[in-house]
C-alpha cells in the first residue's frame, strides 16, 4: 500500500482514489506522516509538523466524503512554506526573529486551501525571510537536497521543494521574489509555478519585497499546479495588489498542448551555460518543437541588468518591510533592555541572521540620502526597460524559454563566502519578478545525475499557455517522474 501511494502522488490520481474509496484520507495522511518521520530528519524540510491535527482533519474529511462532499482536493495533504500565517501554529519565516511567533489569523492562501478541503501537515523550512537561493540562511538549519544530501535544495522555498521531491507531501505552497519557487523546484526535480504578480493574494504572507513577492506552488505535475491554481486564484479585498482579472479553469484546456505556439529563446543569455546544461535545455525545447511548437530566436537587450537591479530593488523594499521588527508588538525581544533604543538595536541584532542584516544594510544604503536617485530610482527605470523588452518579445511569441538555473544544485557551503556568485544563481529567474510575469519551472533532462529545470515565461495573466506547454512536455517525457533514491 505504501509504495502504491507514493507511486501515485499526483493530485489527480489521489483525488480519484479518494473518490472511489480505494484510499482514505486517514491512510494518506498517515502515509505522509510516516514518511516525514522516516525521511525528514536528514532532509530537514519541515520546521513544524502538525500530525495530530492533520489526522483529526483527515478523519473529518473521510466522513464528509462519505456524506457526498464532492470537492476534488478534499482530504489531500499539503505543506505550507513557513511564511504563510497559520492561526495557532508557528510561523517563523526561518528566522530567530519570529521563532516564537504564532499568528492570530490565517493567510488567504491557507484559508483557501482549507476551504478546498486540503489538510495541512505543517510548515516547511526556508531561507530566513526568503532571502537566499540555497536554503542555508534558515535559523532552523539548511534543507538538504534529497537527490544528494551534500547539496543544497535551493531556496528560498527549499523545504517545500524537498518535501515534494522526497514524496513527504504531494504539494506545497511557496513564494517567489526572485526565483524562490522555481530554483528549488529545478534543483529538486519538481514543478514550480509562480503566477502573475497579483494573481494570488499575499494577505498573511510575510513580506520581503512587496513589488516582487508572489505566492505559488510546487508539485510533481503541471496538472497538480492547475488544480491548485483553481483553488488559490481570485481577488482578495485584503490585498490591494490582488487582481480582478478573470480566471478560467485550465484543466479542460490542458490537452491543447503547445501546437502552433511560438516560443522565444533569448539566445544571448545562454552563453553562460556549460555544455551539459545547454544540452539539457536544447533537449527539452526540442521536445516542444516535436510537439509542433515553433522556436524563435529573440532578444532581451536589458536582461543582463536583471540581477544588478534586483539587488537594489529587493533589499530596498526589504529594509523598509523589516523595519516593523522592533521587539515591541511581536517577534524576538532582547533581555533586560536598558532603554527603548537598546531594545530596538539588540532585539534586531539578535533576531536577524547575517544575510538578512546584509540585505537590510544594502537596502538602507541604496535608499539613503544622496544614493536613492543613483540606485533605487535608476534601478526602477531599468526595470521598465526590461518589462518593455518582454512586451516587445510577446508581440512575436507566446512564451519565452530559458533554463531555470545556470547549473544544477551546488554543494552546501560552496557559495556562502561569495554572495555575488550566490546572487548570480537567480540570473534567469529574477526577470519574471521584475516584469511581473507568470512562469513555470518543469524538469528537463538531468545534468551530471542531478535534476535540472526548463523555465517558461508568459505575458501577464497568460498562465494557461504555460500550463498547456508544461503539460504537453510532461505528457511526452518522464523527467518529472524521477524520485531520488534517498527517499525510496
Amino acid at each position, binding site marked *: 500500500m505504501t509504495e502504491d501511494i507514493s507511486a501515485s502522488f499526483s493530485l489527480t490520481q489521489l483525488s480519484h482514489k479518494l473518490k472511489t474509496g480505494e484510499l482514505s484520507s486517514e491512510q494518506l495522511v498517515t502515509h505522509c506522516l510516516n514518511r516525514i518521520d522516516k525521511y525528514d530528519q536528514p532532509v530537514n524540510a519541515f520546521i513544524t509538523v502538525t500530525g495530530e491535527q492533520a489526522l483529526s482533519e483527515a478523519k473529518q474529511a473521510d466522513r464528509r466524503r462519505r456524506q457526498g462532499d464532492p470537492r476534488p482536493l478534499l482530504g489531500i495533504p499539503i505543506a505550507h512554506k513557513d511564511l504563510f500565517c497559520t492561526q495557532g501554529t508557528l510561523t517563523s519565516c526561518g528566522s530567530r526573529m519570529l521563532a516564537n511567533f504564532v499568528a*492570530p489569523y490565517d493567510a488567504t492562501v491557507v484559508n483557501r486551501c482549507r476551504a478546498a478541503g486540503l489538510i495541512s501537515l505543517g510548515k516547511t523550512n526556508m531561507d530566513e525571510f526568503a532571502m537566499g537561493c540555497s536554503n542555508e540562511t534558515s535559523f532552523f538549519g539548511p534543507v538538504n537536497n534529497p537527490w544528494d544530501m551534500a547539496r543544497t535544495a535551493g531556496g528560498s522555498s527549499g523545504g517545500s521543494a524537498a518535501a515534494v521531491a522526497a514524496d513527504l507531501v504531494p504539494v506545497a505552497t511557496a513564494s517567489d521574489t526572485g526565483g524562490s519557487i522555481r530554483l528549488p523546484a529545478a534543483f529538486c526535480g519538481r514543478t514550480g509555478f509562480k503566477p502573475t504578480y*497579483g494573481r494570488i493574494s499575499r494577505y498573511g504572507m510575510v513580506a520581503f519585497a512587496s513589488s516582487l513577492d508572489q505566492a505559488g506552488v510546487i508539485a510533481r505535475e503541471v496538472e497538480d499546479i492547475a488544480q491548485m491554481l483553481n483553488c488559490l486564484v481570485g481577488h482578495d479585498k485584503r490585498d490591494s495588489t490582488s487582481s480582478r482579472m478573470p480566471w478560467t479553469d485550465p484543466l479542460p484546456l490542458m490537452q491543447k498542448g503547445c501546437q502552433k505556439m511560438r516560443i522565444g529563446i533569448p539566445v544571448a543569455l545562454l552563453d553562460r551555460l556549460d555544455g551539459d546544461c545547454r544540452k539539457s535545455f536544447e533537449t527539452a525545447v526540442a521536445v516542444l518543437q516535436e510537439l509542433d511548437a515553433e522556436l524563435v530566436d529573440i532578444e532581451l537587450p536589458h536582461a543582463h541588468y536583471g540581477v544588478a537591479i534586483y*539587488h*537594489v530593488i529587493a533589499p530596498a523594499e526589504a529594509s523598509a518591510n523589516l523595519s516593523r521588527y522592533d521587539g515591541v*508588538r511581536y517577534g524576538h525581544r532582547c533581555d533586560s533592555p536598558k532603554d527603548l533604543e537598546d531594545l530596538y538595536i539588540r532585539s534586531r541584532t539578535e533576531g536577524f541572521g547575517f544575510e538578512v542584516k546584509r540585505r537590510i*544594510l544594502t537596502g538602507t*544604503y541604496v535608499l539613503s540620502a544622496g544614493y536613492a536617485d543613483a540606485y533605487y530610482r535608476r534601478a526602477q*527605470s531599468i526595470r*521598465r526597460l526590461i518589462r518593455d523588452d518582454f512586451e516587445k518579445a510577446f508581440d512575436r511569441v507566446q512564451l519565452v524559454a530559458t533554463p531555470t538555473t545556470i547549473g544544477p544544485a551546488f554543494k552546501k557551503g560552496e557559495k556562502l563566502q561569495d554572495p555575488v556568485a550566490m546572487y548570480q544563481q537567480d540570473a534567469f529567474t529574477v526577470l519574471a519578478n521584475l516584469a511581473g510575469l507568470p512562469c513555470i519551472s518543469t524538469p528537463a533532462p538531468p545534468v551530471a545525475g542531478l535534476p535540472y529545470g526548463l523555465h517558461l515565461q508568459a505575458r501577464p495573466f497568460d498562465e494557461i499557455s504555460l500550463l498547456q506547454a508544461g503539460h504537453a512536455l510532461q505528457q511526452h517525457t518522464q523527467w518529472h517522474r524521477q524520485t531520488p533514491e534517498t527517499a525510496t
Partner: protein
Amino acid sequence: MSLDSQLLDHLLFLSRMELSENERKLILQDFERTLAMIDVMHAANCDSVPPLENPVSQTLELRADEQTEEVDREALQQMAPEVTNGLYRVPRVI
C-alpha cells in the same frame, strides 16, 4: 561608490542593528563586490525612462474609509513580548 567604516556605522544607526567585529569585516569586504555587481547598471541608457513601481499595469484599488472588521485586541497582544493593561510595554522613555 564604496562603503567605509564610517558609512557602515551610519547605515547601522539608520537600521538599528549592530555587527560583531567579524561581521563588520565580512560586510565591508562583500559590500565592495556587491556594489561592483550592482554598478553595472550605470551603463544603461535610462535617463529619460520613468521608474516602474508596479510590474503589472493595474490601478491599485482604494476602498471606502469604513470600518468593516473588529480587531481582536486580546488575540493580537497575545504575541507581544510584554503587555500591561492592554498596552504594549517598553522601557521607560521619559
